[in-house]
């Protein structure tokens, strides 16, 4: 194998599994250490720069970071990364003085942002302090998009949304609520320097089976029903409710129904329980509130009596796999099952819809009616129009909307500075040794077995009575400290200098995970098989360095390294060092200008 180039910004970034998995690349271990040090405001600001909505995301994020967490590979449960983010938001001081100020001088450029969800808000946050005049249009009266209209208040109180949207609007961003954009052509004609489309995926899929029209009064589209609750138009539902669908929307629907009078709420999904789109913790939360989930049932027809819904009939199916491993649902042959109910909530998917974008103005769409968008730059085929969030590639989540927003802001900034938007400067990297003394390291490197701590919940009886009562109470400071201690500090990297190594094997002998091997070089596949512990996780890199006196190479499998620093502590010559890797992402403004200082 060739020598690993640790100066490439991606190499050590990948080792920080959570940060790498986070679409916005939040420096997770860095903020977790700050929480352990009770420096909540500092932890909050790190998050704020990366993901813009720490208080919101700390309650609602889809957390792609957690399944990636190294702790899962060495123990069982990941660090509660998401709920620790909330701790930073809950216990911080007033941080307003630390936020950027509205631009003292505007640069004369005007940006229109369609939709006031997280994607547009991120673009505005990145651009407004640079002097851009950002105008957000939303058909709804308040900013936040689906964060405000869809996510139930018992998961995310309005106060948190107000606070974090407020930080952005206070940067001199103009929000025009209640103003729907009906024609892109007309908007472009207004002479904006750039237009960002962050209008989300606003249409809930319907279920066209017999009985749908006859019983329409008691069959509701999930996302419309949830926004009606949020706007205060709906405050009750029947006693018996069937929720169709297995995604996040279905989980929010069933739990909302439990709070609005639904006593017998059933979730019914077509496929298997394990294949449901909802996250495991969402399913757990629903079941904890007494909501059973039934699987392998395909809705056949709604039953009704004189225009009144009486229930839903399902066909029982089973999964069958063909020779290529593809799954098909086939009737199991058992009798149909009927669920009597008073209301049905249809939560079987969301769709994009762009009726307001004319098809002859240079914005190309594909055969599925989706705009053609470059995933790196978020550019459409129209030079001035950019997309992001759910509008770009279909429904995703808040953190992806934020990540898109950052990229779109860079593109807009580059476009309006006359630069090539395809030239994306790499992030900057800083490496700092953590050695403080012979046995002193500036991070807690005592790794202990410790199971994940549970977030305290509001009493179920109380919680189910009030749809606005937040269910999760958040970690208290003690629990937060304990949970923070589970983080393995994957950003504190093992850095090897061959010229210092005397090949004494001390690091090999002490490493608790058998990560390190000194051996003859070979090609990767073969080398992986003959290390002290075979390196079978191909998604994790091998760190290879030559230049040793015996002509062997040092090979370290990054896979299950605990970042305990014992190798560095035992090395007599300092050939191993523990160095903190800090990644400075590229954002709109100075850091995205061309020919910037090179990484590392």
């Amino acid at each position: 194998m060739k020598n690993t180039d640790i100066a490439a910004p991606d190499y050590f970034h990948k080792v920080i599994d959570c940060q790498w998995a986070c679409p916005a690349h939040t420096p997770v271990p860095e903020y977790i250490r700050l929480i352990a040090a009770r420096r909540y405001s500092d932890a909050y600001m790190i998050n704020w720069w990366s993901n813009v909505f720490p208080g919101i995301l700390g309650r609602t994020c889809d957390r792609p970071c957690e399944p990636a967490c190294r702790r899962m590979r060495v123990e069982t449960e990941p660090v509660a990364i998401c709920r620790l983010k909330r701790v930073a938001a809950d216990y911080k001081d007033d941080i307003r003085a630390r936020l950027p100020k509205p631009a003292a001088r505007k640069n004369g450029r005007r940006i229109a942002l369609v939709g006031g969800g997280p994607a547009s808000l991120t673009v505005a946050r990145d651009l407004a302090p640079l002097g851009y005049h950002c105008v957000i249009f939303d058909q709804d009266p308040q900013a936040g998009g689906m964060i405000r209209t869809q996510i139930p208040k018992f998961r995310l109180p309005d106060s948190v949304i107000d606070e974090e949207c407020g930080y952005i609007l206070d940067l001199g961003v103009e929000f025009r609520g209640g103003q729907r954009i009906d024609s892109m052509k007309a908007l472009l004609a207004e002479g904006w320097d750039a237009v960002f489309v962050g209008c989300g995926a606003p249409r809930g899929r319907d279920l066209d089976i017999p009985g749908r029209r006859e019983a329409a009064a008691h069959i509701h589209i999930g996302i419309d029903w949830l926004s009606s609750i949020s706007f205060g138009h709906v405050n009750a539902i029947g006693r018996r409710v069937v929720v169709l669908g297995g995604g996040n929307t279905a989980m929010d629907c069933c739990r909302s129904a439990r709070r609005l009078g639904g006593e017998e709420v059933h979730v019914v999904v077509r496929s298997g329980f394990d294949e449901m789109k909802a996250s495991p913790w969402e399913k757990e939360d629903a079941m904890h509130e007494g909501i059973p989930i039934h699987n392998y049932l395909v809705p056949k027809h709604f039953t009704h009596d004189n225009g009144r819904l009486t229930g839903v009939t399902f066909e029982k199916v089973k999964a069958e796999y063909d020779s290529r491993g593809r799954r098909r649902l086939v009737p199991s042959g058992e009798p149909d099952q009927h669920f009597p109910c008073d209301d049905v909530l249809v939560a079987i998917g969301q769709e994009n819809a762009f009726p307001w974008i004319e098809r002859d103005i240079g914005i190309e769409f594909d055969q599925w009616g989706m705009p053609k968008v470059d995933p790196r730059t978020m550019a459409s085929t129209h030079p001035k129009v950019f997309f992001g969030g759910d509008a770009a590639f279909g429904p995703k989540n808040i953190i992806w909307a934020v990540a898109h927003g950052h990229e779109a802001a860079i593109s807009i900034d580059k476009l309006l500075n006359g630069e090539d938007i395809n030239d994306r400067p790499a992030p900057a990297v800083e490496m700092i040794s953590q050695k403080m003394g012979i046995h002193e390291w500036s991070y807690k490197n005592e790794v202990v077995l410790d199971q994940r701590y549970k977030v305290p919940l509001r009493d179920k009886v109380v919680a189910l009575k009030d749809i606005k009562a937040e269910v999760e109470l958040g970690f208290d400071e003690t629990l937060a400290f304990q949970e923070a201690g589970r983080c393995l500090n994957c950003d504190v990297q093992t850095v090897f200098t061959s010229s210092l190594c005397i090949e004494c094997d001390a690091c090999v002998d002490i490493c608790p995970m058998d990560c390190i091997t000194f051996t003859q070089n070979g090609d990767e596949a073969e080398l992986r098989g003959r290390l002290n512990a075979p390196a079978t996780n191909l998604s994790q890199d091998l760190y290879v360095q030559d230049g040793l006196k015996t002509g062997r190479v040092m090979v370290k499998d990054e896979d299950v390294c605990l970042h305990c620093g014992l190798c560095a502590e035992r090395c007599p010559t300092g050939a191993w060092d523990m160095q903190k890797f800090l990644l400075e992402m590229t954002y709109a403004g100075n850091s995205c200008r061309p020919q910037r200082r090179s990484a590392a």
Partner: protein
Amino acid sequence: MTYLAKPKFHHPALPKNALGYTHRDYEGAVSTLCAGCGHDSITAAIIQACFELAIEPHRVAKISGIGCSSKTPTYMLGNSHGFNSVHGRMPSILTGANLANRDLIYLGISGDGDSASIGLGQFAHCLRRGVNMVYIVENNGVYGLTKGQFSATADRGSKSKRGFINTDNSIDLVAMALQLGASFVARSFSGDKQQLVPIIKAAIAHRGAAFIDVISPCVAFNNHVGSTKSFDFVREHNEAVNRLDFISTRMPIEISYEPGTVEIVEQHDGSKLALRKLAADYDVHDRTAALGFLQQHAAKGQIVTGLLYVEKDAKDLHAHLRTVDKPLNALDEKDLCPGEKALEAINASLR
């Protein structure tokens, strides 16, 4: 020296041996030796050997004297018996323990100071008696624990860290062990586990006095230019006579060797040593030739390593003394007080 405890975590795919243990189960307390000390690597090699042989830790007795090397039994086999004796006295404690309980595996761990200086007499007698044991000297040429004075194995002309030249002749423990009748004699290097681990395994399987001299650089006091026990010097002057594969009784011989390149040596317990010859004319069964070979190479400044001698039909002290088969703690009253008639017979034989 490390203040951190080694985390209990281990690699999720660590292999297990026949007893269901991983190599981590053969560890002891975390080492307090200097970072990089060769002794720690020998500890790791012993751990690996015991793991691979699937030895039950409670069947091992680790016995040592005084010195950094003699501290190492604490860092291995946490569930074994151990006795840290006085300086240079490991051999007599081991001999006594072995006579009392012949069923245990005896690991004598010593240093060059412990065995070649203060304990030279004990070293000699223990080997000549053929005590069934693995006697390992962790040889760094200095008294590490007392801050680096030359020991009796330091080569004449080698330089101390502070610049003194050693004017005394050195003791070659391997040569002495051959002369004293040890039935298994080897030399290896702490920086070469591929050589060391199979040698330790073979020595454990050997019945009789097995002696291994392991050159083990002292990073604190004897790893400088001018030392003949430094990593660099040993790597440059290492002359391996053979490479060993240890094949236990449980394992079928799977490895296929080119004819003529390998000699298979069968031990009393049925285990086999596959010796890949590096020095073509070296005969591991010829004690006197081995002595000559060692001296010729030593004169050239070369350090001969590998399995240097093994006696095919070795016998141990118990066989020489015709002791009872059972360990003393397993003898019951009937064995110990065989009655009046037996006593009379004994008395009669002495008249």
